[in-house]
């Protein structure tokens, strides 16, 4: 009879978990529903100015019509494309720079003050210069997404390279390994978890860079829709864009999280 008792205990434990999950989910949905309801009602009753704060139903309508006539798709795809590219180039670029710093101690020492300055600099302030240099188009916006994440990635990854236990290097050197072999067999794999965790940070940073970039120059994209809506006093459009950005950014973040889990499992 004893094994059955263990089973029962386990079942009870699982039931407890399930119940807890249900409570949490109920609250989560509840908060969202109440928030949107309050917003809708106070907008309809003119407690808040519907012209400025719009209302969930109007925003929903707007999104649906924009999806139906296809005018939303262009903006979403442009912004997504820019963000992904800025994110990828920023991350890969950062890892590559960190690698070159690791290869040459002298190079790292020489670059040190420049990295500090670049890192401390609020990168979005470079916007106008990027536009002058690269023209008012995709290039500037992608560069913005890139520049905002590349230095942080460089510093974090370089630090991780340096913190790899020296003794792994010793083991390899006792076999006569050269610098590239040491990098490939010890430094890179040991720092992989850090590199993967910078992915998540960089997704957020790239969104900031791209939206600010679109504020400044573009004629397309979600950032552009926000600025445009603001200028023509169409706050439903502003709100709709914000909602879409929130959804996309969250999806991308979740995607990177999935990728992280997968990488962690398959690069062990």
């Amino acid at each position, binding site marked *: 009879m004893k094994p059955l008792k263990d089973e029962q205990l386990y079942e009870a434990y699982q039931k407890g978990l399930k119940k807890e999950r249900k409570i949490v989910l109920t609250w989560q949905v509840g908060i969202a529903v109440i928030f949107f309801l309050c917003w809708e009602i106070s907008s309809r009753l003119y407690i808040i100015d519907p012209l400025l704060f719009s209302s969930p139903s109007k925003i929903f309508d707007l999104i649906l019509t924009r999806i139906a006539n296809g005018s939303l798709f262009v903006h979403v795809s442009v912004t997504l494309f820019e963000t992904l590219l800025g994110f990828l180039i920023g991350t890969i670029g950062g890892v590559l720079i960190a690698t070159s710093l690791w290869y040459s101690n002298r190079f790292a020492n020489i670059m040190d003050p420049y990295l500090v300055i670049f890192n401390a600099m609020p990168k979005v302030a470079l916007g106008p210069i990027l536009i002058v240099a690269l023209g008012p188009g995709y290039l500037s916006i992608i560069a913005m997404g890139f520049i905002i994440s590349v230095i942080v990635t460089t510093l974090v990854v370089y630090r991780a390279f340096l913190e790899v*236990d020296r*003794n*792994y290097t*010793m*083991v*390899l*050197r*006792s*076999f*006569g*390994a050269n610098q590239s*072999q040491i990098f490939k*067999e*010890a430094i890179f*794999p*040991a720092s*992989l978890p850090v590199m993967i965790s910078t992915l998540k940070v960089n997704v957020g940073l790239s969104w900031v860079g791209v939206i600010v970039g679109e504020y400044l120059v573009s004629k397309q994209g979600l950032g552009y829709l926000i600025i445009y809506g603001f200028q023509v006093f169409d706050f439903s459009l502003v709100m709709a864009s914000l909602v879409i950005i929130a959804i996309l950014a969250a999806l991308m973040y979740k995607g990177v999280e999935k990728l992280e889990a997968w990488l962690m499992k398959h*690069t*062990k």
Partner: protein
Amino acid sequence: MTILKLAGISHHYFSKNGYTKALEDISFSLERGEFISILGPSGCGKSTILSIIARLLQHTSGDIFIHEVPIKESKEEIGYMLQQDYLFPWKTVLQNVLLGPKIQKREDEAIEDRANVLLQEVGLSNVKNQYPTELSGGMRQRAALVRTLMNNPEIFLLDEPFSSLDFQTKLKLEDLVATILNQYEKTTILVTHDIGEAIAMSDRIIMMEANPGRIVKIYDVPTELRAESPIVARKHDAFQPIFDTIWQELEKKEKSGEGI
């Protein structure tokens, strides 16, 4: 035949704030197939000596010869097992063991067979596809031992390979190492804190002191102990007298304020 000869080796560690003299005037030599132990307090430079012989550190003065060739010009393979096992956690046991051949770009079937034979010998063939984190401390040490043996080094350096193990595992592993090294006729330097281990395993014992690291005395282990396996040697009649001699010498150092 003298395989390794150190003559007046000193080593300084330099840093921005000054320097540490880790070794002073270290001289000894090793015959082929000989097993010696280095015994001494923490910080007396034991690991430093091994790192210098393994060519991971450049000594600041003195000469080292391997087969009468200056160490810098010698191509002799030297196996170094570090103070901890330092198995790469992202590689399986087998991949860890094949690391040396991989670095030297001579991975082939014969090498892989050799790895399998050695893993079999130390009783790890059933876990060779697992990751080091899944192994016990003793298993990890054995894997590290095989990794060091893979390149078939002439000289074998062991830095406290058994210090993190429980007593029983340690005794078993001592026997295993002694057997394997005997079988492959390796010349070995073992660093240890354990007087009994030094006596049970070696032909000679180098005793060191710290600040700066110097050789105090070199003891010859009685011939009747050398022939025995470590476990048997520990129970041998000749074991206790030499143990006491070394113990007293260490005590004397401690009393004179040298701090063991």
